[in-house]
C-alpha cells in the first residue's frame, strides 16, 4: 500500500472526476465533497511522498510492473516531489475559490466543469513525476485539452475564440515536442529519460540531437508563453471563467518551466547545453530580458486587473527561463524557488480576482472603489501578494528575485539584471494603482456626496464568500511563511533538488 502512493496521488483526482461527473448529474450536492475530497487525498499523498524522498532520497515507481526501458516509470527525486507537493497544494487552494465562483456562474454545468478540472489536476501531477518522454507528451496533451475545454466554458464569444487560438498554438507546441522526441528516439532507441541521457552522452556533436533539442525547446517555450510566443496567453487566461484561470494560470506556465529544467538537466545534461551550445544560452537570456521588459510595459497599459495579471505572468516566465539559462547555481536556485513562490503569488492574485468578481462583478481597475471598507480581508491578502511580487524583503518574492539577481551578476548578464529591476519597479506601479483605486471613494469629483454616502452606507461591508476565506488566508500565510523560512527552503529543498539533478 505504502509503496503505491505515487500512483494513488494521480489516481485520486482521476477517480474523483468520474464520481463528480456521474453523481453530479443526479444532484449538484455531490460536486463539492467529491472534488475537495479527492484533492485532499492526493495532497496528503504528495506530502507523504515528499517526506519519503527527503528522508530516503530519490526513488522510482514502475507503473503496472513493466520494467523500464519498456514500461513507464514515475521518478520521484527531490525536485519532482517538491513540484508534486506545490501542484497539489495550489490546486487545493484554487479549488476553494473555484467552487463558489463556478457555482455562481454556471450551477447547471458545475459537475462537467469540475470533472474536467480534476482531470487537469491529475494530468499536471503526472506531468511533474513522469520519467518517460512520450508519456510526458500524452500528459501534456491531457493537460492542454482539458484547459482548452475549461477556457471555452467562459461567458460570451471571446472565451471560445481565445480557446481556439490556444488550441492552434498549443498543438503546434505539442507537435514540436513530439517531433523532438521522435528525433531522440531515432538516435537512442529508447523513450525513458534516464536511458536517453545515458545513450546520448557520446552523441553531443550530432546534428540530429541538436535538431531534437531545438524542437523540444521551441515546443516548451510555446506552451509556457515565453515572450515572443506568448500571443495565446493573455486572452485565454482573461476570458476563461475565473474558476478555471485560478487553477491554470498559477500552474501551467510553472510546470512547463519545470519541464524545461527537467529536460535540460536530466536528458541533455549541462555539458551539452552550456558547453557545446553556449551561443544559444546568451540569446535565450537576452530574449528573456527583453520579454520581461516588454511584458511589464504592456501590463502598465492594461485597464483590467485580470488582464494585467496575465502580462505579469508572462514577465515572470521571462524571469524563470532567464534564470535557467544563466547557467549558474544561483540562477537555477532562484528559478526553482521562484517557481514555488510564483505559483503561490499567482494563485493569490487570481483568488482575489475571483472574490472581486463574486462581490463586485468586475475587475476593471477604474470600477474598484472603497474595497478596503467593503472587503478588508480580500484586500489584505492582495496587499501581501502585491508586496511579495514587488519584492519587499520579509515576503518570499524578494528572496527568489535576490537569487536571480545574484545569478545575473555572476554570469555578467547585466541586461537581465536591469530587466529584473525594471520589472520590479513596474510591478510596484501596477499594484499601487490597483490598491489606490481600491482605496478611493466612489465619486472622486464630488467629495461632499461621498462623505454623505459614507454615513448612510456604513453596513456595506461584504467580504469574500465564506467558502473562499480559508483559501485566501492560506495563500497569504503561505507567502509569509515561505518568505520567513526562505533560508530553510533554499538549503533544505531547492539546493538538494539541484544536487540531485
Amino acid at each position, binding site marked *: 500500500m505504502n509503496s503505491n502512493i505515487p500512483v494513488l496521488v494521480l489516481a485520486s483526482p482521476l477517480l474523483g472526476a468520474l464520481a463528480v461527473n456521474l453523481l453530479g448529474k443526479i444532484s449538484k450536492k455531490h460536486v463539492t465533497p467529491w472534488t475537495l475530497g479527492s484533492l485532499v487525498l492526493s495532497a496528503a499523498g504528495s506530502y507523504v511522498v515528499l517526506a519519503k524522498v527527503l528522508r530516503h532520497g530519490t526513488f522510482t515507481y514502475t507503473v503496472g510492473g513493466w520494467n523500464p526501458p519498456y514500461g513507464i516509470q514515475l521518478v520521484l527525486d527531490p525536485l519532482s516531489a517538491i513540484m508534486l507537493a506545490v501542484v497539489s497544494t495550489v490546486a487545493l487552494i484554487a479549488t476553494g475559490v473555484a467552487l463558489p465562483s463556478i457555482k455562481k456562474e454556471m450551477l447547471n454545468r458545475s459537475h462537467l466543469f469540475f470533472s474536467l478540472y480534476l482531470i487537469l489536476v491529475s494530468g499536471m501531477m503526472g506531468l511533474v513525476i513522469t520519467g518517460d518522454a*512520450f508519456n510526458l*507528451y*500524452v500528459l501534456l*496533451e491531457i493537460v*492542454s*485539452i482539458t484547459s*482548452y*475545454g475549461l477556457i*471555452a466554458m467562459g461567458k*460570451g*464569444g*471571446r472565451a*471560445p*475564440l481565445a*480557446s*481556439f487560438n490556444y*488550441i*492552434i498554438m498549443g*498543438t*503546434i507546441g*505539442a*507537435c514540436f515536442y*513530439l*517531433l523532438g522526441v*521522435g528525433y531522440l*528516439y*531515432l538516435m537512442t532507441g529508447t*523513450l525513458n529519460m534516464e536511458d536517453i541521457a545515458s545513450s546520448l552522452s557520446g552523441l553531443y556533436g550530432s546534428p540530429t540531437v541538436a535538431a531534437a533539442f531545438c524542437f523540444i525547446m521551441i515546443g516548451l517555450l510555446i506552451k509556457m508563453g515565453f515572450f515572443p510566443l506568448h500571443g495565446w496567453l493573455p486572452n485565454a487566461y482573461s476570458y476563461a471563467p475565473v474558476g478555471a484561470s485560478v487553477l491554470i494560470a498559477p500552474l501551467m506556465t510553472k510546470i512547463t518551466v519545470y519541464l524545461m529544467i527537467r529536460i535540460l538537466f536530466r536528458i541533455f545534461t549541462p555539458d551539452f547545453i552550456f558547453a557545446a551550445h553556449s551561443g544559444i544560452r546568451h540569446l535565450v537570456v537576452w530574449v528573456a530580458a527583453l520579454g520581461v521588459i516588454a511584458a511589464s510595459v504592456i501590463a502598465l497599459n492594461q485597464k483590467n486587473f485580470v488582464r494585467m495579471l496575465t502580462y505579469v505572468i508572462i514577465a515572470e516566465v521571462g524571469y524563470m527561463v532567464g534564470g535557467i539559462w544563466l547557467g549558474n547555481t544561483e540562477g537555477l536556485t532562484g528559478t526553482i524557488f521562484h517557481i514555488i513562490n510564483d505559483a503561490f503569488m499567482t494563485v493569490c492574485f487570481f483568488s482575489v480576482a475571483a472574490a472581486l468578481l463574486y462581490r463586485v462583478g468586475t475587475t476593471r481597475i477604474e470600477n474598484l472603489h472603497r474595497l478596503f471598507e467593503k472587503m478588508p480581508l480580500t484586500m489584505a491578502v492582495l496587499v501581501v501578494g502585491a508586496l511579495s511580487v514587488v519584492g519587499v524583503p520579509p515576503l518570499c518574492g524578494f528572496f527568489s528575485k535576490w537569487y536571480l539577481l545574484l545569478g545575473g551578476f555572476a554570469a555578467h548578464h547585466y541586461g537581465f539584471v536591469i530587466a529584473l529591476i525594471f520589472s520590479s519597479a513596474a510591478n510596484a506601479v501596477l499594484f499601487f494603482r490597483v490598491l489606490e483605486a481600491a482605496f478611493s471613494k466612489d465619486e472622486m469629483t464630488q467629495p461632499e456626496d461621498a462623505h454623505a454616502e459614507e454615513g448612510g452606507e456604513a453596513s456595506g461591508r461584504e467580504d469574500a464568500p465564506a467558502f473562499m476565506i480559508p483559501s485566501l488566508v492560506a495563500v497569504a500565510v503561505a507567502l509569509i511563511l515561505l518568505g520567513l523560512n526562505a533560508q530553510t527552503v533554499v538549503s533544505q529543498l531547492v539546493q538538494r533538488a539541484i544536487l540531485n539533478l
Partner: protein
Amino acid sequence: MDIISKYNYIIYIILMMIGFYTMIRKNNMVKKLIGMNIFQTAIILFYISIGAKRGGAIPVVDPAIAEVVARDIVNPLPHVLMLTAIVVSVSVTGVALATMLKIYKAYGSIDEDQILERVKQHEL
C-alpha cells in the same frame, strides 16, 4: 540518389510545411483546423518511417522459429506510439470543433476577420 530513396522524410517535411502555412495564413477556422490535422499527420508519417524497414516482416514472433533477427522485423514501437498520437489528435480536433460551434453561435461566422469586426462592434 541517397536522398531520393528517403522520399518519405521529404514528404513529411513538405506536409508539415503545408499544415503550418495553413494554420498561420488562413482566416477560415475550418481551414486552420484542417491545417492542424495535416501537421499532425506529417509527424505520424515521420514516426512510421522510423520504424519501417524495406522488406521487413510483421512484428509477430512465431515460437516455431527459434531465432529472431531484429534486422528483419519492423520496429513496432513507433507505430504503437502513433496510435496514441492519433487518439490525441482526434480529441484535439473534437474540442476544436466544439469550440468552433460555440464561436459560430456567438458571432455567426467562422472567418477570423469577420469575427474580429464583430468583436469590435460588441465592445463599442
